[in-house]
């Protein structure tokens, strides 16, 4: 009996691996793995909204970055500074630092800013992607006041030797190369992935920031400009080794290294010297993690250790007459993290399951602008202990209780409690009511505390109190599967840290904002097949009211009661995919309502981002020749050539193309 339980645990833990395999095998087919009944009503996730991104979506977005995937296929709002440029995530109307991101269980938010640049995570390196909305993130870490995104890599134990090569060629001199090779047996699996992306990113646009007076008629003419200084280059390696010495243990070692260089375009209104105001940004990342999982008769023990390092350099140069290119900013920062985690799960009597964990992280930041000589060097030691218990009562009710206690540099944070339940509304049907209530805290980032000038060592942690409730439904008929979910949430975040201009002339972070974030998330999926036609439709809608109720002490401050900047009230997306025989057709639709760039929500023509919708189309075919699978896909982005903005006055590309050729064995 005990052995059986262990086996079930093992199967459950490898289910993610099966999904990874699904990705490999379903490049242009439609076997959609959605939230299954088992996922929907698991005591371990009682009350939580956790969504696993469909393998079909990961496959469809293989040549994209995680920012592209999340912005088009989830309720997360991505604020992108342009193609290949910085992209941050706002989850349920919270700040980018309120989205926790992990790679194989290791947090990858940088200790400096507390944020993640989603444009730097290519989809190639993702096998499994899950999104924990709101308080569901407490199961993994504190601080995810908006939620968390988990990236995982898994072994496919049935694989003996397989590989694939992908070549992407796109508009604006864009080239993507990806090679993945896996080899192994039932005991040992080795996977290697290599990738390289480059884009000159030199699209043209009507430059509204510049006007020339026509010498004839005197009218103002906007020039057609090229998006200069916007190129990016990225290359990386992901190496995984998995070892299964017996049926009870899995050991793994994973390394992900990446080098990324990019330049950021100047302000569109720039008319200074051609060879001045030039910048480049380089980031080098190393992430190494080793884990050991041991399955006892009714328990699981997991140990994880990781080292992460990031070097980030930013240089701004001007051409000085007689001296050449002289830097005016040469900022170099090194960040590292040494993270160790242990977690234990135990199945007790009466179906009670217990979890406990302890995470320890030591982070170090050293940053210096070698031109001005400003910078700081600081470290932080964080401990996070966790206890959780969950149980299923009959076949209708799941309950989960969690507690997390964090300690940062010897300071105890208040307790992080979570209570959630699932209730099956109709016996025997997959219609489940989920609800939870929780409190969460987020530590200020090291920049918030120590940045020179302005860092404020007296900052308090940000506090979030939230509640949510939702309905999930899943049903299937012959050849058709439908699922839907609706979630309502309310999150009251106080001590929200923002950087404000201080009376000393530089910006300082303060715990001054209180933000009430309330909203609704609606997601639905339909998939199936009739005859040779397969189809899948996934749609999402989010209503996000994220309103500032902070300090009212400043006369004339019109920001009280107003939506936070850059958070759209309405956002929606639809992705459809059809395939017929060897052919496939996909359509991606996105909509964002207006976004404000002023805290007072001015709808002045100048400071306001109008609503936009985006349509992308893809068509592909896939053919098997002997042991090889060959496929080709053409993607057309922005098919209606819409002019739109994600950041004020930053031009976005018009209609553009990408051809993806893939060979698999």
């Amino acid at each position, binding site marked *: 009996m005990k052995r059986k339980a262990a086996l079930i645990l093992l199967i459950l833990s490898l289910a993610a691996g099966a999904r990874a395999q699904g990705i490999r095998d379903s490049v242009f087919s439609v076997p959609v793995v959605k939230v299954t009944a088992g996922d929907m009503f698991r005591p371990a996730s009682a009350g939580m909204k956790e969504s696993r991104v469909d393998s079909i979506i990961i496959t469809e977005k293989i040549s994209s970055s995680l920012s592209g995937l999340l912005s088009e296929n989830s309720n997360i709002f991505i604020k992108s500074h342009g193609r290949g440029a910085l992209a941050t995530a706002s989850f349920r109307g919270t700040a980018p630092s309120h989205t926790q991101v992990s790679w194989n269980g290791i947090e990858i938010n940088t200790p400096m800013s507390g944020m993640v640049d989603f444009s730097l995570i290519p989809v190639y390196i993702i096998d499994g992607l899950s999104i924990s909305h709101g308080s569901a993130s407490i199961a993994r870490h504190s601080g995810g006041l908006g939620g968390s995104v988990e990236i995982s890599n898994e072994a496919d134990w049935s694989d003996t030797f397989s590989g694939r090569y992908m070549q992407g060629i796109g508009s604006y001199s864009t080239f993507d190369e990806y090679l993945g090779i896996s080899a192994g047996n039932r005991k040992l699996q080795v996977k290697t992935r290599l990738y390289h992306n480059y884009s000159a990113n030199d699209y043209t646009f009507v430059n*509204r*920031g510049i*006007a020339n*007076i026509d010498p004839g008629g005197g009218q*103002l003419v906007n020039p057609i400009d090229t998006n200069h200084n916007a190129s990016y280059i990225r290359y990386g390696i992901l190496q995984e080794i998995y070892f299964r010495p017996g049926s009870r243990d899995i050991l793994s070692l994973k390394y992900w290294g990446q080098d990324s260089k990019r330049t950021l375009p100047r*302000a*569109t*209104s*720039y*008319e*200074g*010297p051609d060879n*001045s*105001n030039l910048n480049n940004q380089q980031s080098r990342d190393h992430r190494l993690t080793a884990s050991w999982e041991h399955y006892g008769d009714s328990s699981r023990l997991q140990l994880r250790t990781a080292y992460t390092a990031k070097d980030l350099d930013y240089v701004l140069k*001007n051409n*000085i*007459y*007689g*001296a050449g290119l*002289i830097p*005016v900013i040469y900022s170099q920062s090194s960040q590292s993290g040494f993270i160790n985690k242990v977690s234990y799960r135990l199945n007790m009597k009466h179906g009670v399951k217990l979890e406990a964990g302890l995470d320890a992280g030591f982070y170090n930041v050293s940053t210096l602008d070698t*031109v*001005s*000589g*400003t910078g*700081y060097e600081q470290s932080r030691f964080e401990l996070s202990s966790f206890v959780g218990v969950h149980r299923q009562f009959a076949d209708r009710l799941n309950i989960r209780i969690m507690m997390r206690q964090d300690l940062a540099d010897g300071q105890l944070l208040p307790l992080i409690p979570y209570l959630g339940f699932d209730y099956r509304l109709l016996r025997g049907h997959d219609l489940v009511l989920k609800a939870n209530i929780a409190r969460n805290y987020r530590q200020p980032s090291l920049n918030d505390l120590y940045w*020179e*000038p302005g860092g404020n060592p007296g900052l308090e942690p940000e506090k979030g109190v939230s509640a949510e409730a939702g309905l999930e439904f899943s049903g299937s008929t012959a050849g058709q599967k439908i699922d839907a979910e609706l979630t309502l949430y309310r999150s009251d975040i106080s001590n929200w840290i923002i950087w*404000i*201009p*201080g*009376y*000393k*002339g*530089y910006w300082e972070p303060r715990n*001054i904002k209180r933000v009430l974030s309330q909203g609704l998330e609606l997601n639905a999926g339909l998939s199936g097949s009739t005859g040779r036609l397969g189809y899948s439709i996934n749609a999402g809608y989010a209503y996000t009211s994220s309103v500032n109720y*902070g300090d009212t*002490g*400043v*006369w*004339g*401050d*019109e*920001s009280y009661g107003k939506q936070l*900047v850059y958070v759209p009230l309405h956002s929606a997306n639809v992705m459809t995919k059809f395939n017929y025989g060897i052919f496939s057709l996909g359509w991606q639709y996105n909509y964002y309502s207006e976004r404000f*760039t*002023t*805290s*007072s929500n*001015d709808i*002045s023509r*100048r*400071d306001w981002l*109008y*609503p936009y919708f985006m349509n992308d189309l893809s068509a592909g075919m896939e053919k098997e020749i002997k042991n090889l699978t060959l496929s080709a896909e053409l993607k057309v982005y922005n098919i209606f050539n819409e*002019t*739109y903005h994600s*950041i*004020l*006055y930053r031009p976005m590309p018009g209609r553009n193309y990408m051809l993806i050729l893939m060979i698999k064995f």
Partner: protein
Amino acid sequence: MKDDELWQRAEVAPADSRSGVFIVNEGNFMYNNASLSYYDTETNEVYNDIFFNTNGLPLGDVAISMTIRDSLGYIVVNNSGKVNILDINNFEYRGKITGLTSPRYIHFINDTKAYVSDLYAQAISIVNPALRELTGRIDLRNNASPYNQHPTEQIVAYGNYVFTNCWSFDNKIMKIDTYNDSVVDSMEVYLQPRSMVMDRYNSLWVLTDGGYEGNPLGYEAPALMRIDAATMSTEMVWRFDKGDWPSGLGLNGRRDTLYFINGDVYRHSVLSESAPEIFIESPYNDSAAAGGGFYGLGVDPYSSEVYVADAIDNVQPGVVYRYSHAAVPVDTFRVGIMPGSFCFK
């Protein structure tokens, strides 16, 4: 939504506005949302976003200052590397001077020569405003480290010379001969001279900000200095408390009374030997306040009325307060994002 709808032009200029003040709203770095407001001092009407509304063209990225010469206004737009020129009566775009590295202020020597100070160029740019061309440079490069290359800020006239203050990570005042465009003298002042004016008795008043904690150049109590322009020698120094951050030094029309911001607005007679006195009290002198505070200051040269701008949180339209010469509140109006400087018509 058609993008084109955003760029329509409109007639916004008030007919026959005889006296008024332009408010230069800096805007946020890299947002291209600098703007220009106009306030008619007779009718008390405010006209916002006049450059954009009249011309269908954003003013640019980080507008620092405006100078009027005849009927044209020259607005220096720092991170756009240019000076935009408009007609001060109908607000129509009249052209631009481009090719500037990181321009801050423009100062006219005559109709065909003007100096443009610069944060990064390691030089003052010489431009021909009539031809709208960059014609030369006054080199300020020295052998010191790249950041200590005399970033020039404000420029004030003294006979055939001008003085310019080197603010960011610097502590120099330079004297430049405007006939042969060369540096003829310089003097060391306290850390980071931020603003500067010349009074009617040819005393140069310099306000330093003292740097900040962790500043590699140093951190000291800011100073208000009176310097004899003829000899370039310090005549008087008034030190603030360490940690203060004074700014916005201005003069009245008779050039005998100084005004500046140090939390509150201070006033000081140029002949007075006593400490500057509080003229207008700021409601936000509590350091725990969530932003807010006086950001820019302008003194009407005709009426000696004082205008003070509050940028609030820097990401919403700021507010300008108008006070009489006796510090009596006259009017309050909302302008653009980060109102930083004033230019009287």
